């Protein structure tokens, strides 16, 4: 196998517990996003667009959908003679096997995979973030700085620093301290969960950690990074400017969809210079009837709109019947919304049937606060005729 300069390792084993019913049957990276995509399309497309052609995808939780989605990798141009995309589930070795204990352990268990390509650098990515980023630029920066580890960071509002891993840097962007979800942050540069390691070092630390520490959580944030920090390795922060979102919660998932709308969306998906590739389901063109009213929405092919759709994102195969109203909502693939139904501030799963005149997210619970509450309907549910799912309720 020819040597690769940099191999990407994409962590895609997470359950995404906080997404609730949306990840009942699929791993978080397989969660649909943006009318057409799944979350994993973003890091995979970023890899292709950055010129990275060898990608390991580490799977563990409910991998079936994800495995078949990735297939040969041809959707992202990652079907290559050398490298390409390789799905890496945990496997049994000579001395037995175990589940991936944590992010670092997942890489440790696949040292053999990485050794095939003998890379200079390893790029570690998460499978559940929404952003467009050129990893080649980050690698250039890593080399310029003579770093051993470069961590992708972005500036977050000071009031939110307590939610993130915060990097304290000197004037040269060298990281001098790492604070995990600090009460009193000294900086506002938050880790994006994107790392470039010199493979030689990372390999050594992974083996040491596994061999010397039986109780290790096998986690980058808790085990490997602090140890490397203590040994004074060269850590640098690479500041990313642009849209980045961790869609880890129902609220952030909904909000990220709303960010796709508007005159100048924060995340522009129609940019032909940085295409987000996907498996691209083959569907007929979208049809808007004579009575359709559509405003400020993103709609995929294979949809049939006979009713009203405002400030919403509709995946492929969705049908909105006459007199149905969808507002400020995300409707996942192949869901049918029958006439007279009204949906607001909701996320409706795939293959759902919303029967006539039912309401989702329209009525509030008594004594509910004014705070925005997102209603969520899980996959394959049927919402009975004329029923009402109150704001903030979850079905499924």
């Amino acid at each position: 196998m020819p040597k690769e300069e940099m191999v990407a390792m994409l962590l895609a084993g997470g359950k995404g517990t906080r997404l609730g019913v949306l990840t009942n049957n699929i791993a978080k990276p397989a969660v649909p996003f943006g009318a057409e995509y799944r979350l994993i399309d973003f890091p995979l497309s970023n890899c292709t667009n950055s010129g990275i052609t060898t990608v390991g995808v580490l799977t563990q939780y409910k991998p079936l959908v994800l495995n078949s989605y990735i297939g040969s990798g041809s959707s992202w141009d990652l079907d290559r003679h050398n490298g390409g995309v390789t799905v890496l589930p945990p496997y049994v070795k000579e001395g037995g096997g175990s589940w991936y204990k944590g992010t670092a352990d997942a890489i440790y268990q696949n040292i053999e995979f990485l050794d095939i390509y003998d890379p200079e650098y390893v790029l570690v990515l998460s499978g559940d973030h929404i952003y467009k980023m050129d990893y080649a630029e980050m690698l250039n920066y890593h080399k310029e700085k003579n770093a051993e580890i470069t961590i992708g960071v972005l500036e977050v509002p000071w009031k939110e620093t307590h939610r993130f891993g915060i990097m304290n840097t000197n004037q040269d962007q060298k990281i001098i301290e790492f604070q995990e979800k600090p009460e009193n942050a000294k900086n506002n540069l938050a880790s994006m969960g994107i790392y470039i390691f010199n493979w030689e070092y990372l390999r050594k630390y992974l083996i040491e950690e596994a061999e010397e520490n039986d109780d290790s959580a096998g986690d980058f944030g808790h085990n490997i990074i602090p140890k490397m920090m203590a040994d004074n390795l060269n850590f640098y922060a690479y500041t990313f400017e642009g849209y980045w979102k961790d869609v880890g919660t129902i609220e952030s998932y909904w909000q990220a969809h709303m960010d796709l709308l508007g005159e100048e969306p924060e995340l522009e998906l129609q940019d032909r210079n940085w295409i987000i590739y996907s498996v691209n389901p083959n569907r007929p063109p979208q049809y808007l009837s004579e009575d359709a009213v559509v405003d400020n929405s993103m709609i995929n092919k294979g949809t049939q709109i006979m009713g009203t759709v405002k400030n919403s994102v509709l995946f492929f195969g969705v049908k909105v019947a006459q007199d149905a109203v969808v507002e400020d909502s995300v409707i996942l693939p192949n869901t049918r919304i029958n006439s007279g139904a009204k949906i607001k501030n909701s996320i409706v799963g795939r293959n759902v049937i919303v029967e006539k005149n039912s309401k989702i997210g329209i009525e509030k619970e008594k004594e509910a606060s004014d705070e925005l509450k997102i209603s969520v309907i899980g996959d394959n549910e049927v919402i009975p005729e004329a029923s009402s799912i109150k704001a903030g309720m979850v079905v499924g």
Partner: protein
Amino acid sequence: MMTPVYKKGGANMNNVMAIINNALDESFLDKLTGHRSLASVPFGARYRLIDFPLSNLVNSGVTNVGLLLQTKYRSLMDHIGFGKAWDLDRKRNGLFILPPAHIYQANRAYKGDLQNFASNIDYIKRSNQEYVIIGSPNIVANIDYRDAFKYHVENENDITIIYRELDVFRRDTTYTVINTDDNDRIIDMKVDPKKNFYKKISLQRYIMKKELLLDIIDDCISKGEWDFVKNAIIGNLDNLKVYGYPFHSYAAVINSINGYYKSNLELLKPNVWQDLFLKNGPIFTKPKDEAPTAYKNGVNARNILAANGCSIKGEVKNSVLFRGVKVHPGAVIKNSVIMQKSEIGANAYLENVILDKGVQITSNKSLKGDTNLPMIIAKNTIV
């Protein structure tokens, strides 16, 4: 039914190969075929004409398809590639590109489409299927060949032609019409007659044994006959068992600009697009990874078919928009067909027009064609 690839015989669809005949006169589409072949003319918001016959064959279980080419086939080749979108990138069988080898004999004039068959006779001979379906890209329909093929075999026909009975004939479109007896035997067939019409039109899908095709080609050419429909088929109506098989769903004949325009707009009728897109399997096309379409604030879009990648701010009614079309605020589009990557400037007005790919209409321009004679703007024009 599962059949091993090496086992061929009887009425299994893996015993059928197909040839799509692209060696047709395409001049009637005027500017739209100035730089492309008929087969790659865009149709129905996200397709090319070739997608329909090709998808129909694949959906029916045919896995060996040859494309006869004649001229201007760069865009067709770009679209088809290795046939991956149709699952025809196979180790055995799959897609075969059949170029017009005879054009290298520059001193001889082109005689007719049987010459294209003859140039590629080795492909036909070498294919190990017993039967062949011959089709052409100027008929848009969603046809399942399985029943027609079963009928062909059971009725022991020599040739089966799929036909459709029409109620409405377009004055400016040419048809190949057939007359049948009560048993659907074809007793007469005419290409583009000026009078004495029949109500049944050929959908230009012919089923026959491969050996028969080879015999007919040899026979015709040895007599100096070079036209597939007129000589190979019509010339044999009396001495072969040629039967029709009726098709009852939607079919459009693309034989004129007006026919092309009307057929596109006809897709806005729900029963038409349901017939064409949802019955008998999907229509496949080359994927482009366009982002979903963005309907911006203040958009007014009604009765439209749109592909992905569009960004619409103005008013669009009764129209078909292909991929990546941009409509700026205040623009009005009515009864029009707007092809890939065209951009309509602010406050422009378009009615009854066909914009080919990449046309730019600058702000405040107004273009209007007639309902029966749409205005065509050629590829990459700036107006």
